[in-house]
């Protein structure tokens, strides 16, 4: 199954059926995940609020991992990203929190810190162990209900507690519960997006995986074909293509801060902190390829990297970074294709019906 994960979503079903037909799928792998949890040492948990479509997603490291970040959007909401600068000392990360709720959602990390502290996990600082929990948020306050309802510390605690190495639920859950895309021509023509995950496993044993909550002002593009997967809608339910609107002289209708794509890439390779930063930087190219436009002043696009070091093989950082970009692009396309309609905002899968 895990080789199926390296394929494009469109090809996924057909390829997996074909694999089953010739008996390949009969091999019972202990690791059935086709997402970021295929990376040894990575667990993921979601918590989705019942009151409004929003929530948080926590990537919990079993022990710790070397981390990095690429922060390129113009309207970010983040926590502990300065710590991830390779010039700074701490080189271990215990968990990463992705949350809805705009800057209010940064509170979710407080709950994850509490969950880790209760388990005595963290950076040894004198008598204390301090959990290292970077976080980034996206803006979903305008979606489906009272904007005062947003992820709190309780959300971060519950998501950490729910984290498993199993297959990661995708679509309109966790940090992707209230995520939308295609807001270039205003929120009224947007399409529902969500959270997606993907991984690539090489025969050598190197694994690279990604999980991304996709809430971009831009459209989602399948880089394999150049086609719009989800984005600005025309009245007839087809996609207008933000790239064409832009070149025709349309200007962005979305306001700063009302968007943002946030994610985590992880590998089982052993990396220095500087190389983890390079991995995050290259992974960010997955945003550029699958979102148009991306890294705008109206997006707070941020991506974290984790290297668990559980695989003892050697891989070039250029290979790891290139695969990270591919996995991120795959995860973004899946976020758009796996989402379900929420609060009257149609998802791509419903538009196709």
């Amino acid at each position: 199954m895990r080789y199926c994960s390296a394929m494009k979503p469109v090809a996924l079903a057909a390829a997996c059926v074909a694999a089953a037909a010739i008996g390949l799928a009969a091999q019972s792998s202990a690791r059935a995940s086709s997402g970021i949890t295929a990376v040894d040492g990575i667990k993921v948990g979601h918590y989705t609020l019942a009151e409004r479509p929003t929530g948080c997603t926590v990537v919990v490291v079993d022990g710790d991992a070397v981390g990095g970040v690429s922060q390129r959007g113009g309207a970010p909401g983040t926590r502990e990203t300065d710590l991830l600068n390779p010039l700074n000392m701490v080189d271990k990360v215990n968990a990463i929190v992705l949350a809805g709720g705009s800057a209010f959602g940064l509170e979710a990390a407080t709950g994850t810190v509490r969950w880790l502290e209760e388990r005595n996990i963290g950076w040894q600082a004198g008598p204390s162990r301090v959990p290292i929990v970077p976080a980034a948020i996206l803006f979903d306050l305008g979606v489906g209900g009272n904007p005062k309802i947003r992820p709190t510390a309780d959300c971060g605690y519950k998501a950490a507690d729910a984290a498993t190495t199993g297959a990661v639920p995708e679509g309109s859950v966790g940090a992707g519960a209230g995520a939308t895309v295609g807001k270039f021509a205003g929120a009224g023509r947007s399409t529902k997006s969500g959270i997606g995950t993907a991984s690539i496993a090489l025969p050598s044993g190197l694994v690279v995986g990604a999980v991304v909550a996709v809430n971009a002002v831009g459209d989602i593009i399948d880089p394999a074909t150049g086609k719009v997967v989800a984005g600005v809608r025309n009245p007839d339910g087809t996609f207008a293509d933000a790239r064409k609107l832009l070149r025709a002289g349309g200007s962005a209708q979305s306001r700063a801060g009302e968007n943002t794509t946030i994610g985590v890439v992880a590998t089982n390779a052993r990396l220095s902190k500087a190389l983890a930063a390079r991995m995050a930087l290259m992974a960010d190219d997955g945003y550029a390829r699958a979102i148009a436009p991306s890294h705008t002043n109206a997006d707070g696009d941020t991506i974290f990297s984790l290297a668990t070091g559980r695989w003892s093989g050697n891989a070039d950082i250029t290979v790891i970074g290139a695969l990270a970009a591919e996995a991120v692009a795959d995860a973004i396309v899946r976020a758009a294709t796996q989402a379900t309609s929420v609060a009257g905002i149609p998802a791509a899968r419903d538009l196709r019906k």
Partner: protein
Amino acid sequence: MAIRNLELGIWNRRFHIPNPAFLIALALSASCAPAGAANSTLTAIDGIRVGHDTLAERPTGCTVVLFDGAALAAGVSQRGSAPGTRDADQLQPTSAVDRVNAIVLSGGSAFGLDTANGVMRWVDEHATDSRRPPSGGPGVPRGVDVPIVASAVLIDLWVGGKPSIRPDADCGYRAAGAATTAPVQEGSVGAGAGATVGKILGRERAMKGGLGSAAITLPNGLRVAAIVAVNPLGDVIDPSNGTVVAGARNDNGSLADVRKLLRSGAALQRTSADDNTTIAVVATNARLTKADASRVATMADDGIARTIAPAHTTADGDTVFAVATGGWSGTTDVTTVGALAADVLADAIVRAVRSATSVAGIPAVRDLKR
């Protein structure tokens, strides 16, 4: 917009020949259209001149972009892991100087940074009231005009001759002196003379890169344009359909597609910094702050991500400069300018490899298709 459509129609995609309509339009534009009307390159922006100098001794050279006028906010995005740059720190929004007189793109690896010395000399000699270098800065006495010349290099030392032949200050001086507002000559010239792409299976599987330029003009008068010297480790992808335009070749000469190789775990031959780097300038006629110019550079860099796979590697020194001339008085927003900058840089990258010609036994796209 007619100019834009014309440009998109240069190549007949199905038959890989120049589009007959384009050739007719080209002939018309050459014979009767006013000069500049058909300019779909960086010099379509008022106040920008471009000059190349290509060395005769070895395929290498430099390309100079000269800026006239005063309102010249500039920024830079430096994301490749093996850069060679000069005066890039000055373009950070927290640095003081907020204008730039020229940007030099050069071959020759770090040696090529020498070209900026020649451009400084040329700007100093040709300073006029309309092209007055910004004065001083902290520690510089008032009245001393210091030309602000930012620069980035690519490495082409292994291509077609003695590596000790590389662009020097004279190359930069000549390129500045040659700068005009005419449409930018593209292909295996200037900083793109020795550029190559698709080196992940080794140099012998590479294809010729080059220099490309493109421009987008909106109905409201906003213009965004790019010039780029394309010399990456990775393949060049057409983002409109996901296909490889130029890159690493198989034994039979077909394109291998590095994205598939990477996902299969195939052994890669070269991921060292000996051979690579893509360097670019994007410009707009909008009026931007220095911080906005940095945002435009950041967003423009997405054009590299979309057309080069892999991009921003440890074996590339990818660097993008952004400049706003302020010659257009309309209003826009930085997201629009940045998004167009990414698109136009992607266009310029694809044009660079499509217009390149074979050099030193390294085949170009146009030659393979014959």
